[in-house]
């Protein structure tokens, strides 16, 4: 029986068709997906914090409204993804608990601080740009609910990248100090952004399996290269310097060559020792705990309505 199910599953994947929630799937597929989708959801939720810090200090009403909409989108993206994870049998409360107790991870990039408003622009340009590189192929991921969530997310994400780049263009037309702030933010975010794609392929043990299952469609290194190729001309247009002396066009490969990120830094940040890890998780925990009374009150209200409605029909 099990063999037949496995064969059917393999054939569905081979035909490039989607696996849906009630289909039989191997336990490893389910576990890998829950881990990846949950990690993705947590990243959206924690990702509200670095930029959220600037909502109250945005320099104009226009920028404030944009930033608000963007941070709201991140919350929405987190919700779409949690909802996809739940179709695999994960429970929302349990996912939140795992984020707060550190047993599930989120993207390393959100553990870096945002000391300047230029960081908001560079996050839109680099971090959302990198996210788009990652996410566009995930719209064809083999698991239906995940792929559909990614379609929605990608549609919304392109505004995120564009608002960032536009913000930077505006600052570059400003004062010497504003231009210096942009360059400084570029210098701080470039390498961590390259690390967002994960460790190099030869050090990414689960990648091959995820690709065989078509959960992932491209390797970490392929996506990283795509991001670099896409970003270099944008940097030239913006008139900033990407902080990598090894960055040169390679005619033979038809791609830009670039330096090697400091993988030990990625390892450190992932394992909890980045500049803001403690702060990010503590803030998420506090928001969750501070909201407990609202959740309880709403549940109590719903229960009361339910009881009085039942009494109403009985009499």
């Amino acid at each position, binding site marked *: 029986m099990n063999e037949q199910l496995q064969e059917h599953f393999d054939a569905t994947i081979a035909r490039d068709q989607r696996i849906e929630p*009630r289909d039989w799937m191997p336990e490893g597929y389910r576990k890998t997906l829950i881990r990846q989708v949950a990690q993705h959801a947590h990243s959206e939720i924690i990702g509200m914090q670095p930029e959220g810090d600037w909502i109250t200090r945005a320099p104009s009403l226009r920028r404030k409204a944009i930033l608000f909409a963007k941070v709201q989108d991140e919350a929405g993206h987190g919700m779409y993804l949690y909802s996809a994870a739940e179709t695999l049998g994960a429970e929302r409360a349990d996912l939140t608990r795992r984020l707060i107790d550190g047993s599930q991870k989120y993207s390393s990039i959100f553990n870096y601080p945002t000391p300047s408003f230029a960081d908001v622009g560079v996050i839109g340009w680099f971090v959302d740009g990198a996210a788009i590189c990652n996410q566009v192929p995930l719209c064809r991921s083999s698991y239906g609910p995940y792929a559909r969530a990614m379609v929605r997310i990608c549609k919304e994400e392109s505004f995120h990248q564009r608002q960032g780049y536009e913000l930077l263009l505006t600052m570059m037309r400003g004062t010497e100090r504003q231009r210096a702030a942009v360059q400084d933010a570029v210098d701080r975010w470039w390498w961590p952004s390259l690390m967002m794609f994960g460790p190099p392929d030869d050090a990414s043990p689960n990648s091959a399996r995820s690709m065989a299952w078509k959960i992932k469609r491209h390797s970490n290194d392929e996506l990283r290269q795509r991001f670099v190729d896409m970003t270099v001309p944008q940097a030239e247009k913006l008139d900033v310097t990407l902080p990598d002396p090894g960055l040169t066009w390679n005619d033979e490969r038809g791609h830009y060559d670039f330096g090697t990120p400091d993988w030990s830094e990625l390892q450190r940040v992932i394992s909890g020792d980045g500049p803001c890890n403690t702060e990010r998780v503590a803030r998420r925990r506090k928001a969750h705990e501070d909201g407990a009374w609202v959740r309880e009150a709403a549940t109590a209200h719903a229960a009361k309505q339910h009881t009085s409605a039942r009494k109403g029909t009985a009499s």
Partner: protein
Amino acid sequence: MNDRNEWPLFEVFVRSKRGLNHVHVGSLHAPDLRMALINARDLYTRRNEGVSIWVVPTSAIGASTPDEKDPFFSPSADKVYRHPTFYDIPSDVPHI
């Protein structure tokens, strides 16, 4: 943390414009139908994606297994005569 009373799950369906069907877009947790509707509006229609929303408790949905080999759908598989192409009509017969 009290996670004992987790809010129930609702499935969300959105009609994107008049004349079209409601389409399933995802799910969310809410304490009751009213809050589910309000949360669905905030979550799934931030950019004018809808003119109407349905929310349905997930537990109230009955579902077939989506597996095409399921014998559930087999009664319709061998009835080609339900399709117009089953019937041979001379090509010079107009309007049919």
